């Protein structure tokens, strides 16, 4: 499915050779109308493939999260287009296409870590038994099986984010989006979360796009795309 509202400029592309999963073509997103309109993203053009390891950096309010949401299909561009060549609809409709790691503590508070990880599978219709088995596999993959029976309130911020990554991994997505996954963590915890994200992306062969305002985090990924006042600047 394509969402198109404008002309098609030249597209920056990641250096990998794999399949293109997301194509943004002068995509823009404006909130509000008239004198109160706020342009969050302006004419962003980019391509994300399964081998992409992209850090989207920029100051707060520069439009990073909005661009991530456009790429994930969580939001619709008000100008330009976003398309997903491999699929006929936005990847976010199906956890096996794309998964999102949110900025804050996004676990459901009253169920255990393993149940949180199994949750997307249950939404997909897996049986409870199957979903739990796959969730344990994911936790094992990220070496956090010991957290399985803990409640979110019993986890540290870093542990909770790793469980959130495991929740994405368990659906075996081809795209992983992470919206400031280390924003509320200290350096050590943040590094461990990035380790886990990179391991997961490598293991799944999935594209990874994460937003951050931390240069050190950005430096660990293959590519850094910068956002400034809604404009996307793609580095070579």
């Amino acid at each position: 499915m394509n969402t198109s509202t404008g002309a098609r400029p030249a597209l920056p592309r990641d250096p990998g050779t794999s399949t293109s999963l997301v194509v943004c073509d002068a995509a823009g997103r404006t909130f509000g109308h008239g004198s109160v309109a706020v342009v969050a993203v302006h004419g962003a053009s980019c391509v994300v493939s399964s081998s992409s390891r992209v850090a989207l950096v920029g100051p707060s309010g520069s439009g990073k999260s909005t661009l991530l949401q456009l790429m994930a299909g969580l939001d619709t561009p008000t100008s330009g287009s976003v398309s997903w060549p491999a699929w006929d609809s936005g990847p976010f409709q199906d956890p096996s296409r794309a998964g999102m790691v949110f900025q804050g503590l996004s676990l459901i508070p009253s169920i255990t870590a393993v149940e949180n990880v199994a949750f997307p599978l249950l939404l997909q219709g897996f049986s409870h038994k199957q979903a739990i088995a796959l969730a344990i596999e994911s936790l094992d993959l990220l070496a956090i099986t010991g957290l399985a029976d803990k409640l979110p309130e019993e986890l540290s911020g870093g542990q909770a984010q790793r469980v959130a990554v495991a929740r994405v991994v368990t659906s075996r997505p081809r795209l992983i989006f992470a919206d400031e996954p280390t924003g509320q963590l200290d350096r050590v915890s943040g590094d461990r979360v990035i380790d886990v994200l990179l391991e997961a992306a490598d293991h799944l062969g999935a594209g990874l796009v994460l937003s951050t305002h931390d240069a050190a985090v950005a430096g660990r990924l293959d590519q850094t795309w910068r956002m400034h006042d809604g404009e996307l600047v793609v580095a070579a």
Partner: protein
Amino acid sequence: MIRIWLAGLLRKSPARLLAAAGGISIAVALVAGLGSFLVTSQATMTQRAAAQVAVDWQVQVAAHRDPNAVLNAVRSAPGTVAALPVGFADSPGLHATAGGTTQDTGAAKVLGLPPGYATTFPLSIRLLTGSQNGVLVAQQTAANLHVTPGDQVRVSRAGLAPYWVKVAGVVELPQADSLFQRVGAPSQSQPVAPPDNVILLPAAQFQAEYAGLAKTRPDLVTTQIHARRDHAGLPTDPSSAFTAETGAANNLAVRTSGAAVVGNNLGASLDAARGDASYARILFLFLGAPGALLAAGLTAAITQAGADRRRKEQSLLRARGSTPTQLIRLVLVEAAVVGVLGGLIGLGVAAVIGAASSWPWDLAAGLAGLAIAAAVVAVPAIRDLRAVAAGESAKVTQRTQPAWMRFGLDVVLIALGLGVFWASGQNKYTLVLAPEGVPTISVNYWAFLAPALAWLGCGLLCWRIADTVLVRGRRVVAWASRPVLGPLSQTVASMLMRQRRLVSRSAVLVALALAFAVSTATFNATYRQQAEVDAQLTNGADVTVVESPGAHATPADAAQLASVSGVKAVEPLQHRFAYVGNDLQDLYGINPSTVTRATTLQDAYFQGATAAQSLAQLKSRPDAILVSAETVNDFQLNPGDLVKLRLQDAQTHTYRSVSFHFVGIVNEFPTAPKDSFLVANADYIAQQTGSDAVGTFLVSTGGSNVSAVADRIRNVVGTTGSVGTINDARGLVGSSLTSVDLAKLTRLELAFALLIAAASGGLVIGLGIAERRRAIAVATGLGATRRQVRRFGSAEPAYVLLVGTVCGLATGWGLSYLLVKVLTGVFDPPPTGLTAPWGYLAALIACTVAAVGFASVVVIERARRRARSLLRAI
């Protein structure tokens, strides 16, 4: 700082403040409304108690004292409107020859009435036939002597020659008991029944006949001063009015230096009314207090929903240097704003619905609103402040049982409640104690404990049930929810289990609100039902036709009444007088096969058998007779005993012995007096007395168009009978609460109960709303469809609703039983069972489900739409 905080509060959280104020306003409006009911009903009771007294004071003039001096003293007593002297004389007997027969009676009373007596005391004499000017004969006396207006009666005098009088009219003396009381004597020394034979002379004629005897036998001729008192000037509260009137009577006795003894009929009537006023207060407490407590609980739930925000704000302010004292001030300001706003809204609502008319109650209600605000807004916030200072954070899950659950407090409370209930039963649930002659009245407040403890115990039991089902029955919950939730069912069951404290608390709130509504509605429905039964018991049927003395109606005349448009059934009821030993009692002759076509007989009317069984016993043999409990006790009767009554023969007009067999006990019967009476087969009475004369026709209209049908019947019967309706009886039954404007109280309570139940249902969604929003936002963020989110988000409200409704209905029904039993005193006759207001109950459940459903959909949809921003914010 306070001003800035207040401005921010009003600007940023007006909805939350208004919701909390709304909860308080419910409590305030309820208290103000019930207080207003109490005040107006007490005033109504006082006025009704005073209005139904025929003669307010009967002042007995002592022997050899000057009646005129006493008359002047009574007239000059503050509050006396009118006073007239009445002569009383004893006669050895009366004699009359009428219709070719001669009759003699036993001892009789002769009264001398001054001109204007009937207009000054209109309730004391009711003319049945003839003229009121001249010599009047009481109805029973006229029957005994077979006299009608125009006949002559010879009146005997002790030691003097008898004299003859010509009967001008036949009258009924509606309050003969008090008219012929032994003034000043204690109740146990009062005559058991008024005299059978009474003749009323004009004062001049009485003076002429008894002036001489008064000098020689002052024990046989006395004077009473009958006084009418100012009812409008009485205090509105029956207790105060009783105290004032008793004081006035005592003052007269002192001022007349023993020349006068006051028979204070007005005081006695107010004495009974103050008991009813106490029952009104009890009803207020029973039915109003739980509502006010629930409204407080609702407000607590609303403020609890904002607890997270409050904690964050407090942490922020503490981090920026605010002192605990400053924060406490801010909390108190918020509580004051909510309390004052809730109070004003509540009083406004009470005024709009016409339920705020008493400033002391309005003030009390306003203060109650402030107290609730302090308890549910300020106290938790100050407690949180300590937690913030200690760096604690709120936990959403609960792994251990609360202490009360471990110690079984719920079971203990219910057991204690049942124990108190049993103990109250030993005392026949006597709540209001009004010792005769004592100006104060006491209420057995201990009896409140039974329903109060049961209410609390059942609330906690509901908590335990909700908790236990989630912990031990998790698999059952998962299995039961699987058709709706699919693979998510086990996860949702786990989720509910871990949130069980929140879930159980919500279920308790819904259960208690529903229990309050159900018990109030059931109690009121039972009360209305019994008031209707009482009215029908008093009148006999929808419409009754009482034949006038001298008229001779037969069962065949029922056909004429049956032909009147709107009449469903007509049943003739014989009314005779029969001597049981020397005691003259009312005897009713019925056809046991058909009597229930025109009237309703409750099981409570009979002792040791149901109504149907009693009628079957009556039908089992022609000479069967049902006897009132009092007569059974007085004459030590046993079932199957032969009872010989003396009945008047229609041909000879003499009393002859007729044999009956005692088959059962009757406590109440339509149109019958409350003390002693008999019920037998009409055919047998007609056969034994030679007359099938009917005293009353019971007419059923099917409960509709009573007044219109009664008017049509009046046109048919003319002057041969008087027509009474159940509508008239409704206004007359007792001085009790039945006559008070309970309909307004009922509407008020039921409306508030419905509002509280619906609000509770809706507001439980507000409990733990932060966690619920987060779960919904996460599910949405993970790609759940709208349908999945709705089902996932509805699981908890559905469980709360299910457990709350089941527990609430069961608790409400149980409490209704306790209330009806404990408040037995307000029912006459006592109900045989509870009356379920099905329509109201259906509306109640529908409103609660709708409120929960609506609130759930709003919260879920809002959280779903705002998932992205919520996920970014958490």
